[in-house]
């Protein structure tokens, strides 16, 4: 009996700790509304009540107490969704073992990260805060809404969003564990082995517990329970279809490998991340129903992305793969609209197709497409308002709304947006990133750990 409670507790773990989300009432007047899913509507109003879009039409009069935004001459689009980021996290990598399915980056959310505000200033309202790519099976990730302005970490969580987990193939896990520590995997063969082994053990574990639980239902049962294992619990949940896999990958062969492994274990929810050579196996991805979340044009920062092309997104999309453009970067997350526009240069996508890459498509990949990703009645009011068309290089994001609450307003933007200030901190403290040195934020923390763990330099 008590055991049951523990399992219940376990299930609640991820849904627990939810603070009440802040919602607002807004009327956005007279904008060019890019709904993404239902075309473009000129001179149109959008009415938002309690954080939800309740009406789209013309000449609405704002009910009392509603905030009114005049969007004349501006473009109104759904809040941008980033299917791959590491902002708002205190920790990215638990790089100590090839499978860390038990850890959860949602435990280390950082609502004070000013990157959240900067993402909002680029129209981005939702992101997928991911574990890093140091391990073949990394930690579980958290889908967050950019409700910047609170210290409440739980307020960032997008309540009810499906669970997701990070996998990683290729150079990163083989370098960290194989080359770094002499532990499988050192090769792409080893990566397959680690994943197959984890799934197989997860399956065994799941069966053992199912058996035990069935046995306990028989009156007078007395027996020892299997050893409880947090990591295998996660594997079992993947096999049960309760967790979407988001897999860091580059080369066509490794992508193909994971498709086969997932087929063998009946795992269907699969999104590839980065997936620079996805275009080479686009027909296979489409047939499986796997999705792809890619960089607009990043390549050549490491060997496994040397044979990439900026036309990747267009090829994937035209082959029927649901494709999104992601950032994996606190810098890019501020202009995903611009990154999406590059699919027009590289492959000639239409405006709606390009915009879908940063709205409804990433929403599908995170399993939240019924709630966000387009401007439709009934959806959550995550909205970005631009001066100029968002796919123009000269566009400027002006206002960003999350759940009907204005979280960024360029006209009223104050310089210092830090929520907390270190009383002992030094104000004269600048950091100059060399972007080309840390293209892959995925390995954040892992490099340091590697140095510490293995004296690897």
């Amino acid at each position, binding site marked *: 009996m008590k055991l049951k409670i523990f399992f219940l*507790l376990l299930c609640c773990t991820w849904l627990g700790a939810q603070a009440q989300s802040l919602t607002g009432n807004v009327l956005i007047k007279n904008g060019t509304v890019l709904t993404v899913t239902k075309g473009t509507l000129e001179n149109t109003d959008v009415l938002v009540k309690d954080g939800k879009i309740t009406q789209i039409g013309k000449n609405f009069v704002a009910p009392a107490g509603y905030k009114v935004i005049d969007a004349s001459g501006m473009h109104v689009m759904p809040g941008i969704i980033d299917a791959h980021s590491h902002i708002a996290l205190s920790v990215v990598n638990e790089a*100590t073992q090839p499978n*860390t399915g038990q850890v959860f980056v949602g435990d280390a959310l950082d609502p004070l990260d000013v990157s959240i505000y900067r993402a909002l200033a680029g129209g981005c309202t939702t992101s997928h805060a991911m574990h890093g790519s140091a391990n073949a099976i990394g930690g579980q990730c958290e889908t967050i809404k950019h409700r910047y302005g609170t*210290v409440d970490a739980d307020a960032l969580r997008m309540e009810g969003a499906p669970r997701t987990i990070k996998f990683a193939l290729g150079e990163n896990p083989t370098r960290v564990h194989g080359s770094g520590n002499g532990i499988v995997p050192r090769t792409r063969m080893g990566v397959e082995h680690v994943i197959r082994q984890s799934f197989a053990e997860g399956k065994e574990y799941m069966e053992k517990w199912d058996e035990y639980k069935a046995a306990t239902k028989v009156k007078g049962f007395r027996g020892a329970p299997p050893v*409880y294992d947090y990591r295998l619990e996660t594997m079992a949940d993947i096999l049960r279809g309760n967790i979407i896999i988001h897999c860091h990958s580059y080369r066509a062969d490794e992508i193909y490998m994971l498709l086969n492994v997932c087929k063998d274990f009946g795992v269907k929810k699969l999104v590839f991340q980065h997936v620079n050579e996805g275009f080479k196996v686009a027909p296979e991805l489409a047939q499986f129903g796997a999705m792809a979340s890619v960089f607009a044009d990043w390549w050549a920062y490491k060997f496994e992305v040397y044979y990439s092309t900026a036309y990747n997104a267009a090829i994937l999309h035209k082959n029927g793969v649901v494709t999104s453009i992601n950032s994996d970067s606190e810098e890019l997350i501020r202009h995903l609209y611009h990154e999406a526009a590059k699919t027009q240069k590289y492959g000639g996508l239409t405006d709606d197709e390009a915009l879908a890459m940063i709205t409804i498509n990433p929403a599908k990949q995170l399993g939240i497409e019924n709630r966000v990703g387009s401007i439709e009645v009934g959806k959550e009011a995550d909205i970005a308002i631009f001066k100029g068309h968002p796919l123009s290089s000269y566009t400027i994001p002006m206002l960003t709304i999350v759940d009907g609450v204005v979280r960024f307003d360029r006209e009223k933007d104050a310089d*210092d947006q830090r929520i907390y200030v270190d009383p002992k901190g030094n104000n004269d403290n600048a950091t100059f990133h060399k972007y080309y040195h840390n293209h892959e934020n995925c390995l954040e923390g892992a490099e340091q750990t590697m140095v510490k763990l293995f004296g690897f330099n």
Partner: protein
Amino acid sequence: MRKQYRLWQLMLLVCWCWATNLQAQDEVVLTPVTKTYAITNVNINQAPGKKIEMGTILIKDGVIKAVGKNITIPADAWVIKADSMQAYAGFIDGFSRTGVTKPKEEGRERQKDPGNPPPDKAGITPQNDVRAFINPADKAIEEWRNAGFTIAHVAPYGGMLPGQSALILLGGSGTDNMVLQSNAALYSELTPAERMYPNTIIGVMAKFRELYLQASITKNYEAVYASNRNGLERPQPDRVLQAFYPVIDKKQAVAFKAEKVLDVQRVINLQKDLGFNVTLVDVKEGWDVINKIKAANAKVFLSLDLPEKKKEEKKEDKKDDKKESKSDKPKTATEFEKEALDKRKEEFTNKYFGQASAFQKAGIAFAFSTNNAKAKDIPATLLNVIAAGLTEDQALAALTTTPAQLLGISDRVGTLEVGKMANIVISDKSYFNEKAKVRYVFVDGVLYKQEVKEEKKAENTGKKADASGRWSYTAETPQGANTGIISIKNDGGKMTGTLTSSMANRDYELQDIVLDGNKLSFFYTADFGGNSLKVEFNVALDATSFEGTMTAGRFGSFPVKGNKEP
């Protein structure tokens, strides 16, 4: 990296040598003459808001026998004439490492499989008992007692689960004698292990959940097994998991260190998931999450290790002066920016000091914890906390009655009432007066008298001190004391000198000897097997003694004292 590690090892070795050296000196400790005391003519702060003017406190055998006016003083009593002084119940520290020895760091051999290290290597030692690490001779005990503290809640050093905490008296002849209550809580931190799992906060939280759930399951099965062992697999005993059993039964709370606002929330999330009773200690940034703390029904100890507070008034004056003199020159954007940034910093400094008041207003019972704070800073810190909105009575409650209640010992301590333990602090003025000095402290009925030092050293300016001669010195390091002799010669203003330390069989040449007023500084370069280490001294001296710090490179600064040899 490797080089640094070797140096560390050497340093430890050296420290160990110092410690053994010190123990060689024998000391005779005289026992108290009587166990009966009468403190007369004293203003008695019996409990916050409850005062008796000019009364007497009678103590016998470690217990308060009488409090009030017109009390007959027995013949065997040692009478303390505390004329117009202030008596309070001894202060209670909600969390610190006072009296706790830091275990020596073991050689950090690389884990073959860093994903599955043995628990003790990974900082998972919940079965450890802080009593094994208490050193009654720890200098900190005296320092905190001198500041008015008589009881501290202490825990072992370590990683995510360092072990069982205890309530100790800050005075006593030995560990057992000092311990008021053992196994006070299961102490935990969100501290990752180095170079192995759990290497991050997310690893720590996952590991904590797993251990807790494993413990729940094994505990159940052990009960099944105990009821009838026949035919059942023998449960595997596991001390790590067993340490969670009292927590699961709610017989014991988890005392969780939670300094920052995010730490507090993370700990509360664990608590919510698993349902244990939680005590938050060392809280520095709790003001914005009071509601969460309330909802978790957590007990709270607010940190007294607060940021330095600038002396505002003087600065304001200066600014005004500048403004007037430079009024013709408009401020640049950079100046505006700097001003705005300084203002925000100040705003947050004020929030740190205002935290206690915020908790008070929210109606949450809280007390203080002193971890990482310096005993000598406490009176000033408390004054700042009071300036930020707490009343003196509320501050006194947070030092006495509330911690007693939160730690479950209010039947014995926290007030100056008949029957309570004789833990008493007596200061010459109100404790919350800037110039107050603690004069007497009773711990468990034992009197500790505090010498009131004349502040000759700091204020001895004007007259130039003389550094020449032979000085013996003692430096306090975490591993023990380092002693030695410093000889300084003054040849017409040019000073030379040598240092002989207990840690090496050679003399070191002193370099850069500078005497500025009564401030003396110099350094020497020690060498250990090819590695050199710069050791700096910065001390203030008078004719016969000095006091200051010794800084040994990256190993940190340690207090040092010295006396002139005849």
